[in-house]
């Protein structure tokens, strides 16, 4: 199912924890294939620390889920990776560069909000944004292709403000991929999207991952991506609490629909409940 052979740098088969105490003092050898490298990323909003020291290194060509309860810092992390926010402390390297403006053309971002102009049609929106990425020749063809790829009709003249939520999310995704980026950052792409559309989007993401793109998805509905997710990064209260292959076991159950499972649910030792015997990844 997956292309890359090497294991993620610091995940043991059961899932390891990257707590601050375990952050090594001496730097490990730099993983030459690391497409994203975060080191001690801290982000404050006034006195509130949204991210409290996230360290991770990820390889290219995989699809990562970023999971966590509300307020864990997922969107903040994604925005920092997209270059919209700067970390208060720590460093971040994307696609081999610490200056995110340099590699902006190789990244695509889909935000929590639609990031579209309501009064313009799908093609008009895409043409404008494609132009920002320097696409000049064949711009119409590429825009149409992107819109068709997400399952919509490029001929629609209505302003996207009149689309249904699912259609808007799909156009937003089209906008993020129209310039064929190597790396995708998607913030809750499936929110308010119907099941059928979500499944199709998930399939599309899987295909793109198979082509070699690196994809990060922040979502509260990880079950949709169960078949295509390579790894899950679990954020909790601003720290990377766990990193596992595929989906965490407890999320494959009905538990996955609850975005607010607490420590009480996890039991006294902090481990998640749920039948593990016989469970296999």
């Amino acid at each position, binding site marked *: 199912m997956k292309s890359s052979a090497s294991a993620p740098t610091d995940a043991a088969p059961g899932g390891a*924890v990257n707590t601050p*105490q375990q952050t090594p003092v001496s730097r490990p050898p730099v993983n030459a294939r690391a497409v994203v490298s975060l080191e001690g990323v801290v982000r404050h909003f006034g006195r509130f620390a949204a991210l409290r020291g996230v360290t991770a290194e990820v390889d290219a060509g995989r699809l990562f889920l970023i999971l966590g309860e509300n307020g864990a810092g997922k969107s903040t992390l994604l925005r920092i990776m997209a270059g919209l926010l700067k970390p208060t402390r720590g460093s971040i390297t994307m696609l081999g560069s610490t200056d995110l403006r340099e590699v902006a053309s190789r990244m695509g971002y889909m935000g929590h909000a639609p990031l579209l102009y309501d009064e313009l049609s799908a093609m008009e929106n895409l043409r404008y944004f494609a132009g920002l990425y320097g696409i000049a020749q064949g711009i119409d063809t590429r825009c149409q292709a992107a819109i068709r790829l997400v399952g919509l009709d490029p001929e629609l003249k209505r302003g996207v403000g009149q689309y249904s939520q699912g259609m808007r999310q799909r156009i937003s995704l089209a906008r993020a991929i129209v310039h064929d980026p190597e790396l995708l950052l998607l913030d809750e792409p499936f929110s308010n999207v119907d099941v059928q559309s979500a499944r199709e989007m998930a399939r599309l993401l899987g295909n793109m991952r198979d082509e070699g793109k690196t994809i990060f998805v922040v979502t509260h509905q990880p079950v949709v991506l169960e078949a295509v997710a390579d790894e899950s990064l679990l954020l909790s*209260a*601003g720290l990377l609490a766990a990193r596992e292959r595929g989906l965490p076991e407890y999320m494959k159950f009905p538990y996955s629909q609850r975005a607010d499972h*607490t*420590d009480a649910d996890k039991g006294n030792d902090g481990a998640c409940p749920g039948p593990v015997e016989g469970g296999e990844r």
Partner: protein
Amino acid sequence: MKRFFPFFVLVTLALLCYAFYQAMYVAPTESTMGDVQRIFYYHLPHAWVAFLLFFTNFLASIWYLVRRSERSDALALASAEVGVVFCTVVLITGPLWARPVWGIWWTWDARLTSTLVLWLIYVSYLVLRRFATGAQTQVLSAALAIFGFVDVPIVYLSIRYFRTQHPQPVIAGGEGSGLDPRMWTAVLWNLAGFLSLALLLIWLRYRLALAENAVEEAHANRALGPEAEMRSGKSDGRAEAEMRVTKPDGRGSAPQSSSAPKVGKPR
């Protein structure tokens, strides 16, 4: 520097006292306006000091944008606030002088009007500082400060020309009016005294701004969790105590305690 502070205060007081003596007793009484003219010894030095302080704000803002240094931002804020205070004094002493002498409070005379515009620009700077949120406050204010100061020469030029077109009585002494040398002495002593006072006030405000920043940073460090606070070397021993007594954190919707995150057991 802190050790010199009491000495500095004494020097300032001494200067101000001597300057007062110079202004009130030594300087001769003005021929046409009488003793009211003595307000000039406060009006003019405050104007010069205010201008100097706004220039300081300009330089500090540029330095902040180049280096993002917290200290230069603190200096920018301090110099703007003290500058506005001194500017206010100019705007008050102007009419106080004008009223007994010319019978009018205000005439839109060139210098006074320019000072009013200057005051408006820097008050708007302070308003922006108050209303901007988050880390962007400093960058936005620094940008506005640059706009403001670049505007200053244009303000003076435009108002001067306007006044030559539409002349009005001049309050603060016309262009060509000379000053008796003994008056100059009084002006200079008052300049020294108030410059010293300005530096004193800026020093205090600057220290206050840095202290406020330090408090915010301490809070921010604390929000990172006790282990991070210890690592940053800024803890006060309370962090260790917190680690031992796990108490629930009241922050946001995260039900986690403020101690180290729970280790996930292998599944």
